[in-house]
């Protein structure tokens, strides 16, 4: 389905159409037109285009148009033969390291790497010397010269697949090396190999033409396109078409292979050809609502829409909340719940083609949904909003040293000079407990451990004076001991600066440890909001209850099975009507499946979106 769709796009159609044409001409050209291509017309030697001879004749008066057509077969056959040699040799050499064991494999890999460094044409010339001038020698030369490149590609692909766990699992299960190669490895590298082979055939065709053009390939009386071009070049003053026409044929055939390769790559899903349909729904007129007073962040009906393959995906579907000055609010949810999207949207970091809409999104007095002066907004957000991302390994620019990456904030927004900004960066690194900050500031990110990078990231947020810290799974990729250090640091920073915190996490325990209030998200909506201290005991939404019960902690009863939520989390493109949790909810009835429950607040300000949530009979605690 998908493959057919990609192949039928203009590029694919053009490529395959052209290729079919070239193959047909190659197959039938010599049968149909060999006579007309060899007949000597002594009246028209080196004639220009005419009704008889569409692109003229050569020095023996032979019709060039038909000669170009007839030459197709030899050109294509030679190119394919050479490509076949390259591929077979390349696959053997590329797969050999996997079969031959460590030491022999290393030698082969090394030899291939040395050979790849030499440009193809140089290798072709080298082999052409050995195999001699002529079609057979040239085919061997071009084929052998292409082998190292293919071997390298094949080796990289094979090595990539060999590292996958299913290959390890097969070997543990006692599957032999050859069987692993043929059953697991080759099928999984076949697609990129086919794509590259197709493209390689195109370039082999060109280098063959080049070789014949130099007079090292096909020899008279045989002729391919390169040979025709060489003959034509001498007379380019009087009769340019004689050189240009076979050239055009070479280009067309080369394009046919290349475009088909590109289309195949698209059909196999290699490369950046994913179709993203950007048709988004009309923006609904937003009514202005007043931000919650005393809040550093106030969000009303936040929606984030991403372009999907078939229709727009609603990743965040109307989220309303506020964070008071100095407050710590946690957002918990599983993958696909929209919690990270919410964080990015609040931080104004979502880019086109994704779309952010909200009735208002007010941070520290400025509504980010309303266009403002870009310069002052950059300064405002750059100094008063700190962000800590999930993966400290990839969140620093590997090409710059740590110090300047921090200092950049002060240089851009606080008008500090290089030296002063760097001094502040060192000071901030010290503030986040990085030892020897002067030396560390001069190091590159890769010289930092994960925990240290996350500290440095927090330090980067402290270059200004943050009113809010948004931390998106800041400790997920860290060890538990490092995690507790980073969380403690966050708490300390909040105590020192009075900044509020928006902590995104899938880990209920982390959120209850750190936060005052918790928002529970499911399928792009908030389903419950309550004080963090009440999460384990007073949750009312079945999802919240199940989430808490499903995660073992150090007090979990060992004699009973863990509570289980049946089914799988919602896939954002397929949100059902009605309550999104209904399919996994033990309490759900037809009403739940038909009507999405609204998020209702009780007297204490706790909110829940569930038809079945028991009305809050217990007097709820008021948030501090």
């Amino acid at each position, binding site marked *: 389905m998908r493959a057919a769709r990609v192949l039928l796009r203009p590029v694919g159609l053009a490529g395959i159409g052209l290729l079919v044409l070239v193959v047909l001409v190659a197959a039938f050209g010599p049968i149909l037109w060999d006579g007309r291509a060899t007949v000597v017309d002594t009246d028209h030697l080196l004639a220009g285009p005419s009704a008889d001879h569409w692109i003229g004749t050569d020095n023996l008066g032979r019709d060039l148009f038909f000669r170009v057509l007839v030459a197709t077969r030899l050109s294509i056959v030679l190119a394919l033969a050479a490509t076949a040699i390259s591929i077979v040799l390349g696959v053997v050499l590329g797969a050999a390291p996997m079969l031959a064991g460590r030491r022999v494999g290393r030698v082969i890999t090394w030899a291939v790497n040395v050979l790849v460094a030499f440009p193809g044409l140089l290798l072709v010339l080298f082999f052409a010397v050995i195999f001699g001038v002529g079609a057979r020698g040239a085919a061997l030369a071009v084929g052998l010269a292409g082998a190292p490149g293919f071997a390298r590609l094949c080796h990289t692909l094979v090595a990539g697949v060999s590292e*996958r*766990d*299913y290959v*390890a*699992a*097969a*070997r*543990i*299960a*006692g*599957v032999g090396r050859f069987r692993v190669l043929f*059953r*697991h490895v080759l*099928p*999984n590298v076949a697609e990129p190999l086919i794509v590259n082979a197709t493209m390689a055939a195109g370039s082999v065709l060109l280098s063959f033409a080049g070789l014949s053009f130099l007079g090292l390939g096909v020899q008279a009386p045989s002729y391919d396109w390169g040979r025709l071009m060489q003959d034509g070049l001498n007379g380019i003053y009087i009769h340019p078409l004689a050189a240009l026409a076979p050239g055009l044929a070479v280009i067309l055939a080369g394009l046919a292979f290349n475009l088909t390769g590109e289309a195949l790559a698209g059909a196999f899903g290699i490369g950046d050809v994913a179709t993203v349909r950007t048709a988004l729904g009309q923006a609904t007129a937003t009514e202005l609502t007043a931000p919650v007073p005393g809040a550093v962040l106030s969000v009303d009906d936040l929606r984030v829409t991403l372009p999907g393959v078939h229709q727009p995906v609603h990743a965040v579907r109307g989220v309303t909340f506020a964070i008071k000055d*100095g*407050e*710590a609010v946690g957002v918990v949810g*599983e*993958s696909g719940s929209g919690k990270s999207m919410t964080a990015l949207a609040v931080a104004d970091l979502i880019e086109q083609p994704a779309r952010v809409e909200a009735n208002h999104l007010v941070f520290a007095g400025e509504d980010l949904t309303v266009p403002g002066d870009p310069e002052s907004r950059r300064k405002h957000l750059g100094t008063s909003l700190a962000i800590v991302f999930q993966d400290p390994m990839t969140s620093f620019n590997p090409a710059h040293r740590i110090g300047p990456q921090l200092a950049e904030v002060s240089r851009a927004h606080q008008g500090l000079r290089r030296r002063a900004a760097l001094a502040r960066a060192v000071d901030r690194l010290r503030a986040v407990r990085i030892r020897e900050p002067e030396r560390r500031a001069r190091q590159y990110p890769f010289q930092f451990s994960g925990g240290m990078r996350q500290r440095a990231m927090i330090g980067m947020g402290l270059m200004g004076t943050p009113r809010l810290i948004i931390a998106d799974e800041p400790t997920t990729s860290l*060890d*538990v*001991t*490092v*995690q*507790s*250090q980073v*969380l*403690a640091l966050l*708490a*300390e920073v*909040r105590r020192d600066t*009075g900044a509020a915190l928006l902590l995104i996490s*899938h*880990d*209920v*325990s*982390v959120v*209850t*440890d*750190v*936060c*005052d209030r918790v928002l529970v998200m499911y399928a792009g909506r908030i389903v419950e909001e309550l004080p963090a201290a009440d999460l384990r005991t007073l949750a009312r939404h079945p999802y919240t209850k*199940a*989430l808490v019960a*499903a*995660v*073992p*902690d*150090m007090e*979990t009863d*060992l004699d009973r*099975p*863990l509570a*289980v*939520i049946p089914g*799988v*989390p919602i896939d954002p493109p397929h949100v059902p009507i009605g309550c999104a949790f209904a399919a*996994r909810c033990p309490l759900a009835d037809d009403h739940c499946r038909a009507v999405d429950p609204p998020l209702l607040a009780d007297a204490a300000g706790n909110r829940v979106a569930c038809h079945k949530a028991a009305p809050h009979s217990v007097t709820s605690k008021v948030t*501090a």
Partner: protein
Amino acid sequence: MSVLSFRDVRVRYGSHTVLKDVSLEIGDGEVVGLVGESGSGKSTMARAAVGLAPVTGGEILLDGRPIPRRGPVRPVQMVFQDPYSSLDPRMTVGESVAEAMPGRPGKQARRAEITRLLTLVHLDPSRADDLPGRLSGGQRQRVALARALAARPEVIIADEITSSLDVSVQGAVLNLVRDMQRELGLSMLFISHNLAVVRYVAGRVAVMYGGEIVEQGPAAQVLGAPRHEYTRHLLAAVPGTIPTVKEPT
């Protein structure tokens, strides 16, 4: 009787010693939990046991004999962390499971065995003809478990098998592991960085640090009354155990 013993096992990569003379015994029908931070050598233990890491010193024995690395019988099997990498995307669930079966069972026998195994891991046997692409992460881990069981192992090594799963799915896989271990009496080395998860499935716990096992013993004792400094450090860091982190605002 199947006891897996690591005896002074050493693994070196170049000049870097990853396992420093580690000894550990996994008794018959016992689940031993292995905890520690990343880089402590947990995964290397697993890979050494199944022959994926070169053992440069010491020995790994099954019931006092070396583990067979050739032939159809592979009594030590492993389940991996990443459910998206552990199944060949081009093989159906049934083919993946069948590949690990010892000998060459006939078509009928194979089919029956696949059905039995998939039912055992609570998967609909009709999923046998599906490609892994149509399965969720939790379902894939069940298939991986079924494949490990297909080899009729005596010991299963589970390396962080729930850490890539969503929290709502993790519980179901943990329940499955416990049920299966009880029903089949398997010996198991259960590796995880999550102490609460290890506490839930393991009878005994070993703590690794810097390529060495610094403490081991019954789970209740190691996690309840730790003796080694590092274990205490590790336990103190588990979220939910130190309410002092929260700062008043």
